[in-house]
């Protein structure tokens, strides 16, 4: 299990943070996503054996946001 922080672009209200966290439901290998609209980042705790970083970023893009490793 690893924990990585990403800078997220495209969030423009507190509800966006909730949308970003919804990728937890999209990918089974993610344990937890904690996003902050105010800080503009998210912390993802995931199992590298089950899900890749590329899949996480793609899931996020599908929801209209872009993430970059912090």
């Amino acid at each position, binding site marked *: 299990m690893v924990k990585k922080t990403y800078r997220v672009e495209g969030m423009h209200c507190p509800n966006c943070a*909730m949308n970003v966290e919804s990728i937890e439901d999209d990918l089974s290998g993610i344990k937890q996503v904690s996003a902050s609209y105010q800080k503009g980042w998210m912390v993802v705790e995931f199992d590298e054996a089950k899900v890749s970083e590329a899949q996480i970023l793609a899931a996020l893009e*599908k929801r209209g946001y872009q993430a970059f490793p912090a």
Partner: protein
Amino acid sequence: MNQIIVAFITGLTTGGLSCLAVQGGLLASSLEQQLEQQLDLQIEQEIAARRTHRSGKKRSRILVHPRLALPILLFLAAKLAAYTLLGFLLGALGSVLQLNAITRAILLIAVGIFMAGNALRMFNVHPIFRYFAVEPPKFITRYIRRTAKNRESFFAPLFLGALTVFIPCGVTQAMMAVAVGTGNALQGAVLMFAFILGTSPVFFLIAYLAMQLGARMEKWFMRFVAVVILLLGLVSVNSGLTLMGSPLSVTNMVQAAKAAQPDPASALVPQSDGVTLFLSAGNSGYAPRVLHARADTPITLNVVTNRTYSCSRAFVIPALGVEKLLPESGTETISIPAQAAGTVMRYSCSMGMYTGEIVFDQ
């Protein structure tokens, strides 16, 4: 029972508009989040549609049906619940919970800064303004996401609706005073419930119609909302400054500019002689706007009301710490100690919407 019916009708007629002027900004703030959320959803659907039609086929435009009635209703329901609870406490605990003029002024300024900050956030002026947004605690968002399985955050309208309890308008304050007078927790609660229920239709209609229009105009409307929030924020700050008796408030500056002009409404009350002053507190403010008093002499100020139901009944002189709830019809006498020549003493309604001043110069 009569008192409760009167409270409902007062809310329906004067309370709704008066409260919207003071609390409309909080409602706009909560709806603004809902609008932004709908735009997000629309963008996501458009992205999905683009993927589906990637082969060059004609792209269809997907419109999201606006669901704005729910957040407005939640805002109003939270407001109703909060004021009912306040009525319960006021009835039970009496005047202990009443806020004084300076506390209200500070609160108004704080709310104004909050709203202006939110408007600047919407304009993307600087990331620092993101801290003005109400971000619900993680356990709540997680709970909403996992149990409700929808994208609508109900926290902001609920929270902001409950917050209105801290910024009551003049009519509401008058009703709060009545709730204290009941001396009974249950009666106080029912009275405030009836009053706030009365104010709700006006709140709902204006907000819903405005927001329906906005959903069609999409992003442009977001900018319009930001401008409205910014203006309401500045109005709130200005009301706070007025309530503090600050000469820096726009209201008091305009007042100073108008001071030289004759005021026809002043004919409604007896002429002041410099020692005994007469002031009319009407439904549209105070007259005359400027009273002249003799310096270095104790003054008697008579504030006269005649079927007055507006905010002006909650009369405040910040410099003296005077706060009076005037009768609907009658005269309230206030003793003012001797003041030095050149002193300008400002008075206003308790929300700083109506103002005037006493100049000690004779």
